[in-house]
């Protein structure tokens, strides 16, 4: 730990906005990709099981 205190850590030598901004946007991008993938998976499964059920009935 070479920061001394947490407030020093978050300040990033006065450049906190840039460092944390870059990391935050990266985090948002990754979470968004995972979220979209999960939603795609859910809707696809729903659609396919529904199709299967309809096929069986007929």
């Amino acid at each position, binding site marked *: *730990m*070479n*920061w001394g205190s947490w407030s020093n*850590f978050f300040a*990033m*030598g006065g*450049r906190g906005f*840039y*460092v944390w*901004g*870059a*990391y935050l*946007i*990266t985090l948002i*991008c*990754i979470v968004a*990709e*995972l979220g979209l*993938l999960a939603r*795609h*998976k859910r809707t*696809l*499964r729903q659609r*396919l*099981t529904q*199709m*299967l059920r309809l096929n069986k009935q007929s």
Partner: protein
Amino acid sequence: MAINLFKFSSPATFYPVAGKLIPVFYGLAAILTVIGLYLSFFVAPTDATQGEVYRIIFIHVPAAWMSMFIYLVMAGWAGLGLILNTRLSSMMAQALAPTGAMFTFVALVTGAFWGKLAWGTWWDWDARMTSELILLFLYIGYMSLTAAIDDVRRADKAGAILALVGAVNVPIIYFSVKWWNTLHQGASVSLIRAPSMAKTMLLGMLVMALAAWMYSIAVALSRARLIMLEREKNSAWVQDVLEKKS
């Protein structure tokens, strides 16, 4: 051996194998990210000239590497699908594209944050940033083309040609942009100056790059699984998979 490979490359066999591998790669990505972030923020020293801002490189450089690497891998899979006519390789190519575009975008945004302090502007027509922007256009073009063609076979092959043409063009574009850039302004400040970089900085960057790599594999595999389900929805194995779940 050849028979095994072909058996493995059929979606029905690949689907469950990929399902078992995905958590492993997500786990590796998570562990490596934790180690990488620890190295980046608590072990790597403050840079003598740039101060703390340089810590952006621990995501910027891995993202830029991945953006180019994924494009090459994508073009490779697409080309393999074009030549050998294997369904799986074309699916992998399409599964990789969105992740590659995501990393390109991340590289651009983090580059802008760094550039605001180093150059004083959010955007500079620096050779690498410009090439990265063009790479994003190439990804978008590939995804739009494969999405616009309804016939799956044609979409795979047309996408493959575009990806390969793009891969041939990337170095030409890079050198022309670089040349254009040096004619219009002096060489720009480099984000990484190799000689003065501390070993721990390099290590942090490598671990983060490895984490990004594992993450890309995990996401691409799970996206490939969805593409498989969608395309083979009428086959027996997909119906088995669905019945097991419900």
